[in-house]
């Protein structure tokens, strides 16, 4: 039995012919062919940049729980409290410390004023509505943590900070987190949606765990290292903020469900089943995944083609999902392990498609800018189709690497300066976005089948 019985290597010798030396259109600024690049197509840089400027569709706010203005405002209020506890012009004997404290205070105050203006301004409010709720929440926590860092540094510098008090607050956070974890059994309604919500909550809980650790200790004399004290206080505040958001998001989510069911076991089992399935597929592709860059098992040289970038990207995505899944498993974050496991499945399926296409002779340099435009359009369509798979919250999470590749591709087109090499890399990113997005529905279906015992039994 071979490692990959399903694969029959094609030996297409007819490669996509490149129209050598295609003239740039008169009046357009053409991407120059670099010295040594005496073969292959020439491109109209203006047209490529225009394709790049079409950009990537923004990610819809697919998170199943609405982030209310009250949730972000709570952080802003706390941030203002912390800021107000620092004098407008802080002053300590050390002139450099004084300057840093003043600069930091100004920055925090400005950031808070700006976020407040956005909330008040109807135009800016529209913009804020477009920003995904979790990002707004994260931004609000960030401002709160910034203000806490400032106050921590100020109290450290003025020797008003009691190291024992910080230790107590860390202990309180540890205890609060334990209580949050012990009452959580991954309850929810639709399994795929519950998975996404609890994966998010795991991240917040993890943040709180790290903030509550006893390391690094507060210096015995805080005035000797006030900015280190600031960082410690910042971490603590960020952990408290994350845990309070986790509670509110969980409560809001469960409030909208009639009869929430526990999914802890289903999620744990799914994480392990996806791991086994992905590992099986990985072994089938090991000759490609284990190969070094100079030792790729293809029958043709990929040098100077988009194919080499496409393969590298596909391999990197698999490697990254492998690591994410392993880390999530080790941390006991089973919902994140499921998401990473499903991304592994999608990444491996996309890698198979990449290998097949390369062996069929595809993914030489695109003939012209129209071909690049088509690749972008195909990627956009594929991502929309992937995101159309229900539940959208989950398909959006799984499709993220495709969206990332699309964004990178269009940015590379906008910034293309280095002739054919840049175009090849951009084209590879766009192609990968399409191939990965095409693999999402199957990965999602597999995860849902494992998650839902009824579907599995059927």
């Amino acid at each position: 039995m071979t490692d990959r019985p399903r694969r029959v290597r094609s030996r297409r010798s007819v490669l996509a012919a490149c129209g050598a030396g295609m003239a740039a259109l008169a009046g357009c600024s053409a991407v120059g062919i670099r010295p040594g690049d005496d073969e292959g197509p020439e491109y109209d840089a203006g047209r490529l940049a225009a394709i790049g400027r079409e950009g990537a569709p923004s990610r819809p706010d697919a998170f199943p729980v609405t982030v209310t203005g009250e949730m972000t405002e709570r952080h802003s209020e706390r941030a203002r409290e912390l800021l107000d506890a620092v004098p407008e012009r802080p002053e300590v004997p050390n002139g450099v410390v004084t300057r840093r404290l003043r600069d930091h205070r100004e920055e925090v105050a400005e950031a808070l004023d700006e976020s407040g203006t956005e909330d008040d301004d109807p135009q800016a409010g529209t913009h804020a509505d477009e920003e995904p709720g979790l990002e707004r929440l994260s931004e609000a926590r960030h401002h709160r943590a910034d203000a806490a860092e400032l106050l921590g540094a100020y109290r450290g510098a003025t020797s008003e900070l009691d190291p024992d008090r910080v230790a107590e607050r860390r202990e309180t956070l540890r205890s609060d987190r334990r209580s949050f974890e012990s009452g959580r059994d991954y309850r929810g309604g639709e399994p795929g949606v519950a998975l996404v919500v609890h994966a998010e909550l795991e991240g917040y809980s993890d943040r709180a765990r790290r903030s509550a650790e006893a390391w690094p200790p507060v210096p015995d004399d805080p005035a000797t290292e006030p900015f280190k004290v600031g960082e410690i206080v910042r971490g603590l505040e960020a952990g408290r903020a994350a845990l309070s958001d986790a509670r509110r998001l969980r409560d809001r989510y469960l409030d909208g469900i009639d009869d929430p069911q526990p999914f802890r076991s289903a999620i744990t089992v799914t994480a392990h089943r996806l791991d086994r399935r992905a590992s099986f597929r990985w072994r089938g592709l090991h000759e490609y995944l284990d190969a070094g860059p100079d030792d790729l098992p293809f029958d043709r040289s990929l040098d100077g083609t988009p194919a080499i970038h496409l393969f590298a990207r596909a391999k990197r995505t698999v490697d990254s999902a492998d690591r994410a899944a392993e880390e999530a498993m080790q941390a006991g974050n089973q919902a994140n392990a499921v998401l990473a496991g499903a991304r592994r499945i999608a990444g491996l399926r996309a890698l198979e498609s990449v290998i097949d296409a390369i062996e069929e002779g595809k993914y030489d340099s695109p003939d012209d800018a129209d071909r690049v435009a088509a690749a972008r359009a195909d990627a956009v369509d594929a991502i929309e189709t992937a995101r159309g798979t229900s539940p959208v919250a989950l398909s959006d999470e799984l499709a993220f690497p495709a969206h990332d590749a699309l964004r990178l591709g269009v940015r590379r087109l906008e910034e293309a300066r280095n002739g054919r090499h840049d175009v090849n890399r951009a084209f590879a990113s766009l192609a990968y976005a399409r191939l990965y997005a095409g693999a999402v529905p199957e990965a999602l279906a597999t995860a849902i089948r494992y998650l839902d015992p009824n579907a599995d039994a059927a």
Partner: protein
Amino acid sequence: MSDVEVTFARDRKGRSLFELDDDEEDRVGGLHFMTGEEDRDRVSFRSSDPAGELRAFVNETDLESESVYLLERSVGACYEVRLTGVYRESDGVDADFCRALRPADVACSRDDEDALAVAIRLPFDGEDFNSFGSRWGSDCDRPGTAIAREGGDDG
């Protein structure tokens, strides 16, 4: 090397703490390696408390069997200097330093520059050495790496 003795001296008015007999003007900065009486005689120390401590440290050194690496440079008044490593090479000595903020309750102006001298007593005569250097890091961000730091506040 870990078996070294170190002393720091700081002049809060930014005046040079020592000068060599071939110095044409009074300027802060310089590196001098002492392996014998002749080298010691080339150095004149300013008459101030911190320079006096430096002179005493040098005078207490047995230059028959030991040597002194003497370095001076300007440093911001709100910063302190830490010695993070001393390396004996085949033909000389190198030292690594880093700079850290002084405690918040130390009065200093962010615009002032002090003169800082460091003397390192080395347990060998180093007579054949001819290569000396120093490396400076802008931030002492790795805790616990300093093998010596400024202890007091100067004069």
